[in-house]
């Protein structure tokens, strides 16, 4: 895996926030890599730091950042070393774009959706307004929005259509990497299936890579080449999707998979007892230990990331 050329390599990424209650360790020493035309899904409970991690990659950070360090290599460039202006002009929305959470409800209500999709192309790709509008129409065809919708306003579209518009906005500058944060969580099953079909086709045809962030494990399998499981600010398991969905390694991943209600298998879902630890003062050892059914003495120390069966897992059981 490591020999292949990687599109994105995140090394030792740390993102802490300052709050009135203390320092929140939202992302704690995370490593992640992604190939070309590859899709990794990041699954975990809310508050586990998955959105913070995506925002850290795109440098869309709030003001109360305490620590922000590590390496983010995009191809050959370490984008963490770039100045803010350089990053804005050459990276954000040019090489990496994002469909933020609830993007469909964040469209500008007073702009026609066609103009909205064209805007990143004008600003980032330096197109003229006319070219950008043409490009926007091309995107509309690709994401399955009828072209005459371009002159409509966001409130005139259904939720599914608005979500497609938000995706078109992320694709219009032809980025290499698109970060999708819960792209289908507020949508109906049929709309969800339609959007997933569309995202798959775009990946197959255009060769983009995706980072998909979701807590919906069933839907995540629609797009996943690889799966990363995040728990309490750390990645606890990364591996090939086929192997992961067939037999997850980390006790947390197993519990998470058991909690998924299945339609086609007769398996009554179970829940995980307890709550994730506070990220202000997380346990020094394994962060899942308190809820873990296979806990033993070694779990009081921080487990290393070990390679097992071609997958990485952060658990003492596999050392």
């Amino acid at each position, binding site marked *: 895996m490591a020999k292949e050329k990687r599109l994105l390599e995140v090394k030792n990424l740390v993102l802490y926030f300052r709050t009135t209650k203390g320092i929140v360790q939202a992302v704690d020493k995370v490593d992640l890599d992604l190939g070309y035309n590859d899709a990794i899904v990041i699954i975990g409970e809310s508050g586990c730091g998955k959105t913070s991690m995506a925002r850290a990659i795109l440098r869309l950070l709030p003001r109360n950042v305490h620590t922000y360090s590590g390496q983010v290599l995009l191809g050959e460039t370490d984008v963490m070393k770039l100045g803010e202006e350089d990053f804005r002009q050459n990276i954000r929305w040019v090489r990496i774009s994002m469909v933020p959470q609830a993007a469909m409800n964040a469209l500008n209500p007073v702009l026609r959706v066609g103009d909205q999709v064209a805007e990143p192309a004008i600003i980032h790709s330096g197109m003229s307004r006319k070219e950008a509008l043409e490009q926007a129409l091309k995107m509309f065809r690709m994401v399955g929005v009828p072209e005459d919708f371009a002159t409509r306003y966001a409130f005139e579209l259904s939720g599914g259509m608005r979500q497609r518009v938000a995706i078109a906005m992320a694709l219009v500058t032809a980025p290499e990497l698109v970060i999708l944060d819960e792209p289908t969580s507020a949508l109906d*099953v049929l709309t*969800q299936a339609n959007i997933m079909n569309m995202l798959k086709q775009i990946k197959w045809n255009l060769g983009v890579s995706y980072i998909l962030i979701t807590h919906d494990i069933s839907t995540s399998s*629609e797009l996943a080449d690889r799966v990363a499981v995040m728990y309490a600010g750390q990645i606890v398991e990364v591996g090939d999707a086929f192997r992961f969905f067939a037999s997850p390694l980390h006790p947390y991943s197993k519990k998470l998979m058991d909690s998924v*209600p299945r339609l086609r298998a007769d398996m009554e879902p179970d829940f995980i007892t307890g*709550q994730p630890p506070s990220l202000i003062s997380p346990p020094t050892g394994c962060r899942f230990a308190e809820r873990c059914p296979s806990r033993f003495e070694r779990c009081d120390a921080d487990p290393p990331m070990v390679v097992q069966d071609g997958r990485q897992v952060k658990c003492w059981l596999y050392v």
Partner: protein
Amino acid sequence: MATEERTQIAPAVVEARNEPVLSIRDLHVWFELRRWGFLLAGHVRAVDGVSFDLAEGEAIAIVGESGCGKTTLMRTILGLVRPTRGQVIFAGRNVGEMGMDGLRWYRSHVGYVQQDPYGALPPFLSVRRILEEPLIINRIGNHGERERRIRKVLEEVKMAPVEDFLPKFPHMLSGGQQQRVVIARAMVLEPKILVADEPVSMLDASVRVEILKLLEGLRRTHNLAVIYITHDLSTVRYFSDRIFVMYAAKIVERAPVEILLKRHRHPYTYALLEATPDPDAHNATVLKEVPPGEPPSLVKPPPGCRFHPRCVHKIAGLCDVEEPPYFEPEPEHLVACWLCR
């Protein structure tokens, strides 16, 4: 109107099990559409001829996409919307004809669990006050009696130790705990029916099952009838007895869970099931089969079967002309589709 007569006949066959706690009879809820404030421009037919019986202690799931009328159906059952035609019958009384006092009495027997727990809880009231409110409104007990019931219901929704939670405000609780408070509020009057509108869609996967199991436990201990409104077939599968599939204001198929999952007959049910993923890496390698188009307008629904414009099995000259009646391919299984004739 031949079809409507049949819809009324069929439930009698299906629901002879035990005394229904709630009966819905040929329910129509239409909303008027006006132009310039006075010209009647038509009706939105949000619920168009729904009939069913809910037995004591039974859990049913109403499944459908947004805009199919399931929320209006729920609001009518809760007595928040008056039906245009048809009846909601509880304990022999028609809810649509009740006055304020009648509705207060009725609502004390029907608990409501909202979709978004944070939005459903008043932010400036403590958990104790939130749970006391329904008791005060219904003039139940004195202060000591109310306190006893509040503690009991909090224990039932497994919020222990009760002492810790009573003085808390909603924003101090996690999403799962907030939903427990919403359930406790719905349960504090000891209702006979619980209506749950997407009770877990805003929650994390791991908490979802916990909340659904809690509802299941309450149903068993209190012999509670539960109506789940949802668009997710995979979550209701383990927590309901019967599934009703709703499309464009009508129930198109209904059956006990196992029959619906294994021997569903309606093309729309098939589409919903196909679109619902299981966690399987194979999903990423294939495209899903999704019917084209979007659900129809409820102002001018298509003639005949309302699903026919999107249906791959459409029989020309029949499906687009005459509305399908309910067919009963096997006991307790009703399908409104000409393919079953």
